[in-house]
């Protein structure tokens, strides 16, 4: 047949025309807005329902609370000018005057009362209701004083004063979408498209001073490589922690990018089932701690973005106890302890293990690689580790039921040291709390009960110091590392101060200096 080049020409022409007809992309942001990439979707910006880290951090920019935690997890005044413990069951908060919501209405004690009562209302199904279970009543005493009455003394109650305040009458979950939420914070909600983006607009009449930016765009980009590519292209200005250690290397030589790293509070640990006949032996747990080379994992897999941990509380926390035993990498000591515990290696350096354990983890690439490192390191002392990877929901379901030998998870957003009660008190053994390893120690129980009832910060510090020392010896969980916070941002961003817990509140003080040259 005769071939007609005409056909090819038409085909090429159609393609070229289509490409030419494409509208030029719309500007990816309004002028003066900072674009921040997030890995996961914030589910509820309403502070009464926000539990995931991104919801809490974005909500902190829209709403004010009575207090906020500083870099040492100490409470600092926000809407409250000051507060006092009238007695061990009563707290009185004095509110700042002149604070208004985004719609111009004044924020008063009635709004505080409404917010706390709507959390307590069972029909509203707030996940925060459990933390307020000892709150008996909230009284508005005049427009600027709020009294909280508890049914029993409970020192960690003050931690609940970080709950964001919504205006009286704000509907509960489900009554409407969250696009109309009103707060009193430095930014107001402009648009919330779940799974896509959250847009905040600067609040020019913010009581703490007008923010330096016109607004913020939080873009949900689930894939780590794509977040890095967006930053490289310039369509994202700021990424905090949602960046893989491997990808960070790309930006080390980029003149337009600046990287901040800072000690964080996210605590990674190795959980163990203490009802297991082998793991209930202290020497075995110590041997496992000696056998794991945390520093090698941090250096090679985490690219230095963590520091070896001695316990749950990070060094920046007010109750942190420095002088606790730390078991360094020492495989010979691990072997000696295992021999002593009655688990001799059946064939020396041969293939037969002393015993076998399983380790559960998620399907995330980094988690799997860490699991393989544990497997290899434990095999050097004669422990065979069977790594089992699961989809997150299945993994978490098993852990919450206490169905595991070994697993690793992290604790995020640790503020009050009363978290120890939930993790190590015998009454918190799953399913009643998060004592997943089923640790029982009457002395720890007594200390934790005293810790939550004492109102004296000095006494509490002493109590939790003792708790940390006991746990570092008994090793119901093996501390692994505290993840560092990593911020990748454009070099012309000024004024950002990272918080150990990843709080983004200092974005209110951020400004953009001048446009950057193309990288």
């Amino acid at each position, binding site marked *: *047949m*005769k*071939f*007609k080049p005409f*056909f*090819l020409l038409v*085909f090429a022409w159609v393609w070229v025309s289509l490409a030419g007809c*494409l*509208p*030029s*992309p*719309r500007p*990816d942001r309004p002028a003066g807005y900072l674009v921040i990439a997030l890995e996961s*979707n914030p*589910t*509820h910006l309403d502070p009464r329902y926000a*539990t995931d880290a991104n919801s809490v951090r974005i909500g902190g920019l829209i709403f004010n609370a009575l207090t906020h935690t500083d870099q040492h997890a100490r409470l600092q005044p926000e809407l409250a000018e000051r507060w006092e413990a009238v007695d061990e069951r009563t707290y009185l908060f004095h509110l700042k005057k002149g604070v208004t919501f985004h719609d111009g209405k004044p924020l008063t004690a009635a709004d505080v009362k409404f917010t706390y009562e709507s959390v307590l209302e*069972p029909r509203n*199904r707030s*996940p*925060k*209701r*459990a*933390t307020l*279970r000892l709150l008996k009543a909230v009284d508005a005493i005049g427009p600027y004083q709020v009294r909280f009455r508890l049914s029993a003394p409970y020192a960690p109650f003050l931690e609940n004063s970080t709950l964001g305040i919504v205006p009286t009458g704000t509907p509960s*979950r*489900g009554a409407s*979408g*969250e696009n109309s939420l009103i707060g009193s914070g430095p930014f107001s909600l402009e648009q919330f*498209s*779940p*799974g*896509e*983006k959250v847009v905040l607009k600067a609040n020019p009449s913010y009581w703490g001073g007008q923010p330096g930016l016109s607004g913020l765009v939080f*873009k*949900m*980009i*689930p*894939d780590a*490589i*794509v977040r890095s*590519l*967006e930053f*490289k*292209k310039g*369509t994202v200005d700021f990424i905090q922690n949602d960046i893989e250690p491997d990808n960070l290397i790309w930006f080390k030589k980029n003149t337009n990018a600046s990287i901040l790293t800072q000690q964080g509070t996210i605590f990674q640990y190795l959980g163990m089932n203490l009802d297991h006949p082998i793991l209930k032996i202290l020497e075995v747990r110590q041997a496992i701690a000696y056998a794991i080379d945390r520093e090698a994992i941090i250096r090679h897999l985490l690219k230095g973005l963590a520091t070896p941990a001695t316990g749950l509380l990070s060094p920046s926390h007010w109750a942190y106890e420095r002088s606790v035993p730390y078991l360094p990498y020492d495989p010979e000591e691990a072997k000696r302890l295992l021999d002593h515990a009655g688990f001799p290696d059946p064939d020396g350096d041969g293939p037969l293990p002393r015993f076998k354990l399983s380790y559960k983890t998620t399907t995330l690439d980094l988690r799997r690689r860490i699991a393989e490192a544990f497997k290899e390191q434990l095999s050097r002392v004669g422990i065979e580790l069977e790594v089992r990877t699961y*989809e*997150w*929901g*299945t993994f*978490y*379901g*098993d852990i*919450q*039921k206490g169905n595991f030998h070994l697993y690793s998870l992290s604790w995020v957003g640790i503020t009050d040291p009363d978290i120890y009660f*939930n993790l190590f008190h015998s009454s918190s053994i799953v*399913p*009643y*709390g*998060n004592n997943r390893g089923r640790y029982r120690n009457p002395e720890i129980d007594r200390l934790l009960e005293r810790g939550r009832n004492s109102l004296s910060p000095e006494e509490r510090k002493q109590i939790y110091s003792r708790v940390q020392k006991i746990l570092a010896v008994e090793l119901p969980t093996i501390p692994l590392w505290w993840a560092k916070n990593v911020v990748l941002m454009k070099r012309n961003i000024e004024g950002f101060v990272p918080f150990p817990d990843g709080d983004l509140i200092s974005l209110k003080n951020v400004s953009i200096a001048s446009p950057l040259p193309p990288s």
Partner: protein
Amino acid sequence: MKRYFTNRLLLFVPTLMGSLTLVFFLIHFIPGDPVEVMLGETASSVDKEALRQELGLNQPLGIQYIRFFSALLQGDLGRSLYEQGTVAELILSRFPATMELTLAAMGIALFVAFPLGILAAVKKNSLMDRIALLFSLLGLAMPNFWLGPLLMIIFSIELGWLPVSGREGLAHLILPSFTLGMLMASILIRMVRSSLLETIHEDYIQTARAKGLSEWRVWLKHALGNSLLSVITIVGLQFGALLAGSIITETIFAWPGIGRLTIQAIQTRDYPLVQGCVLVISTSYLVVNFLTDILYHLADPRVSYGP
């Protein structure tokens, strides 16, 4: 034929019920607890139990199953346990994005596959044929999670022509739809080529040539028209694959579609939302299969659907 289509429409119901039943039991049998996700780790066991009771999750699975179907018959898909809003609202807000992506991917696949497939058949064993087959081989060999970032690096970072991810305008649609459509295009190129080469040796083609028709007319009207049946079959089947494949593509390109919603719903054990997403995906699949049957008839009126 009318009866055939009525029967097909009636078959929708048991097929949908079957897929929903399967998913209902599968999602309930795998470990994981939506109440843990809803109330968080600090909630007391009393609160968790109270919520389980309120949501009916403590009832026997059979009762929950009956309740789910009776609500469904009343058009109520329920409320999401984790996201805000009803299941219907959530799906309606995400489904257009997925359909946009899937249809664009299909459009690109057809637009690429037909010219290349026809050229490859017409110029069999030529350079053009080899290029088309190589393109097809590459498309089959490259997974979405690799092709997507590769296209981003070339067209967004190096050339700066297109945006990297997100769903803002038409330009944002190009890379994800090409990524998603590439596999379908690759299969179709080979289908179009082989179907044409089979048909071109039929007697009626020789007759058409003997009538003095131009070669292009013979290929495009007589050969292509009659080889469309097998291509339509593949297009219909591949539509389901596109919907399923969109889950990965949506994640890579931060495309706010139903694929990502389904993954989130499964991860958080959001039972009503998983059911809703499965309902929509199954329905789409059935509708496309139904349309494929109609297209069969239009493409070849000889195709019979019974008495």
